[in-house]
């Protein structure tokens, strides 16, 4: 018989890997499996933005704590993941956008994000690379970005150092409940554990189905692009009021252009492709915000999946009705907030009281059909 682990985490993205890391450091014998290498889906291909100005209001308290975790990643993760903490600006170019920005910044400020509203001229002083066409800007000092593609390298080392049993390129195909816990069926054979965490990104709907739970998850296909290295054009993270732009220049000179413009593809096929006209739209918006980008060349564009629940809030907590089964995913701006929410989940699994409440999925499940008679 295979070893009985204390915990198996299915899915080695940022959510699963962080949960596993803190559970292992809390004394548990933990196994992580992933169908590919660690952090090669959403966690490795996202824009790396660590911002409050695109974070949902309900998540601001979590995102602020997670931002601190990212800024101090070297201390708890052993690798800085290329994190740069800098100012963030969210721009409004029209009256309607200014109204939207003022409203949204106000709500986020109430939730604790230190966002102030400044004029376009003041924004230009903070970010001389900006267009002079902005009417209003949200300014937040708690912002920044990571090199998302380094996430897998960072977590791989940390997990192995923490004694986690790591099996990459090993897809799970089923979870069976046993008298002592769970048996996870994988390509490389069954794994057994007392507890299981489902952290499979856009694929958690299928995985929850193995436990008989119907948790609908929507798949977003986000498009991203990066320029060649160019001379310094900007030093802040720049977005727009409605959240459809994220722009930052990395220390090595490339500028990453994101914002969640949608490509095509499905999680079932596992592949997605860019829609060229959406890429052009995204790039027009980027060049409107930071005109110097027009002189750059596009080096690469790509897509990545993002998972979203029905109410676009996280699915983080115990699986209702199944003792010792947990789920974490669909966090929304999950790269920013994921590590903190995963740490909270690890606390709960370790029997500690989490500092902030989780996001249990009961609200997302269909009500039981009325009993007959």
């Amino acid at each position, binding site marked *: 018989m295979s070893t009985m682990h204390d915990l198996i985490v299915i899915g080695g993205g940022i959510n699963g890997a962080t949960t596993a890391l803190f559970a292992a450091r809390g004394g548990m014998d933990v196994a992580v499996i992933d169908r590919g290498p660690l952090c090669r889906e959403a966690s490795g291909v996202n824009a790396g933005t660590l911002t409050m100005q695109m974070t949902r209001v309900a998540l601001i308290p979590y995102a602020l704590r997670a931002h601190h975790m990212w800024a101090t990643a070297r201390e708890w993760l052993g690798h800085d993941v290329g994190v740069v903490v800098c100012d963030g600006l969210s721009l409004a170019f029209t009256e309607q956008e200014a109204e939207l920005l003022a409203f949204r910044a106000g709500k986020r400020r109430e939730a604790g994000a230190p966002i102030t509203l400044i004029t376009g001229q003041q924004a230009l002083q903070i970010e001389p690379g900006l267009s002079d066409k902005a009417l209003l800007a949200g300014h937040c000092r708690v912002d920044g970005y990571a090199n998302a593609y*380094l996430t897998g390298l960072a977590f791989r080392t940390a997990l192995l150092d923490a004694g986690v049993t790591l099996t990459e390129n090993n897809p799970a195909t089923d979870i069976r409940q046993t008298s002592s816990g769970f048996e996870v069926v994988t390509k490389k054979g069954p794994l057994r554990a007392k507890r299981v965490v489902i952290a499979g990104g856009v694929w958690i709907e299928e995985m929850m189905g193995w436990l008989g739970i119907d948790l609908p998850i929507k798949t977003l296909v986000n498009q991203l692009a990066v320029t*060649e290295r160019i001379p310094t054009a900007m030093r802040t993270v720049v977005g727009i009021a409605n959240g459809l732009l994220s722009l930052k220049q990395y220390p090595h000179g490339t500028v990453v252009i994101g914002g969640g413009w949608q490509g095509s593809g499905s999680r079932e096929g596992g592949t997605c492709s860019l829609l060229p006209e959406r890429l052009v739209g995204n790039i027009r918006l980027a060049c409107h915000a930071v005109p110097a980008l*027009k002189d750059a060349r596009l080096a690469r564009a790509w897509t990545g999946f993002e998972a979203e629940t029905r109410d676009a809030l996280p699915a983080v907590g115990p699986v209702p009705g199944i003792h010792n089964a947990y789920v974490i995913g669909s966090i929304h701006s999950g790269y920013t907030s994921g590590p903190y929410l995963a740490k909270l989940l690890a606390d709960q699994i370790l029997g500690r009281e989490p500092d902030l409440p989780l996001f249990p999925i009961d609200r997302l499940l269909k009500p039981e059909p009325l009993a007959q008679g």
Partner: protein
Amino acid sequence: MVSPHCHFDVLVLGGGPAGMVSAITASQNGLRVGLIDEQVEAGGQIWRAPWASSPQGYESPEARDGNKMRDRLALSSVTCLFGRRIWSVTDRYRVDLLGADGVEIFQAPHLIVALGAHERVIPFPGWTLPGVMGLAAATIMLKAHGLAPPKDWVLAGVGPLLAAVAAGYARKGHPPKAIIDLSGPSDWFAALPSLASRPGLFKQGVGWVLSIVSSRIPIYFRHAIRRAEGQDRISACVIGPVDADGKSIDGPEVGIACNAMMVGNGLVPGGEVPRLLGADQVYRHELGGWIPECDPFGRTSLEHLYAIGDGAGIRGGAVACSAGKLAGLAAAHDAGCIDAGAFAHQSAQALAEHRKLSAFSDAMAHMIRLRPAQVASIEADTVICRCEDVTRQDLVAAARAGARDVNQLKHFTRCGMGPCQGRMCGDVAAEILAQEHRLDRQAVGYWTARPPLRPISLQSMLGRFDYADIPIPKPAPL
């Protein structure tokens, strides 16, 4: 936004031998064909046309064959869409281009991809110095521009291109100062019988040898470049002996003062478009690396997507022509323009031709294959990825940190993340990774293809626009 042109039955990407022949064949069999190429004239690399403004024409059998085929193309009903850079190819089958008039979009139900190959770079210290250039690039300079290299240049690498470039420049009065050939005379003799199957090429080869011999160019067989030296540009190189596998071995090093170096270690299939579209891939060492899986007519695993020419496996110009004929016929058949009987009848001769040519192309492909031992000889601090300054030891460290496939290697090191998207470093980086883990190349995978297929300026993509015209999606939830 620009709207797509949809009036073609088939689009052919690449105007080299494979692309030209497939386009002509498809059009002769009733298809409306658009032939797209980045250059202003068809020809690809082997049949590259001289520029109108170049100082002197380059006389060769290839130049004559190229002119002949360009004449046939001109008389055909193929629509030539030249001077356009392909930056995106998406589903069934949309091709986004950038031309002199800005962004254009073409869409057709059939797509024939004939985008050729790129040079394989086997890095050595100093390979990124100005004055060091690729062998295929040298042929462009020779054929298209008629430009002479600076005085005191050396020629290094492997395969028939070495002899062709040496002879071409020798005849123009600019012989290289030395030829450094990874192969030995015995490798060339081994290729002779298959060469004899192509009398025309055999004669051409003899001509090259005579030009080289009469120019008294020193040839260093079984030698490779150890390093290039110089401050701001190359001023000398050091060469050293290799064994039959291409591995550096002990023996006297020779220093050669030079102002330029043309170096080429074979070709790698340019298979980005089929990869981008998700066609099944297979690793074929003897054909240059990863290629799309194809039937004898160039049909890939995706419906109505065909891949031919060197991009589907390095086989050279003659095989590319027969492959072009077969794919053109297959597209006409698959589109319902010719029936099964006509298809079988017309393709029989091309299939036979294709088989006959393969002895020679296999021998040439064998000469320019990747030598794993040559890659193993690359020193630790040699830059492999010039876009991102990644050395061999960086790659080895990433492999030891757990990177087991090339895309993970890219994440760990940035190797292949630059503007060349791994075209220069990819083959060697994958080989280093495979050797480090003692895996075969199939196991370490291939680099994910991404748009743009070649870098393009943001300005050129933007077109004219007002902020109000940007179709900004609805706001994200608060």
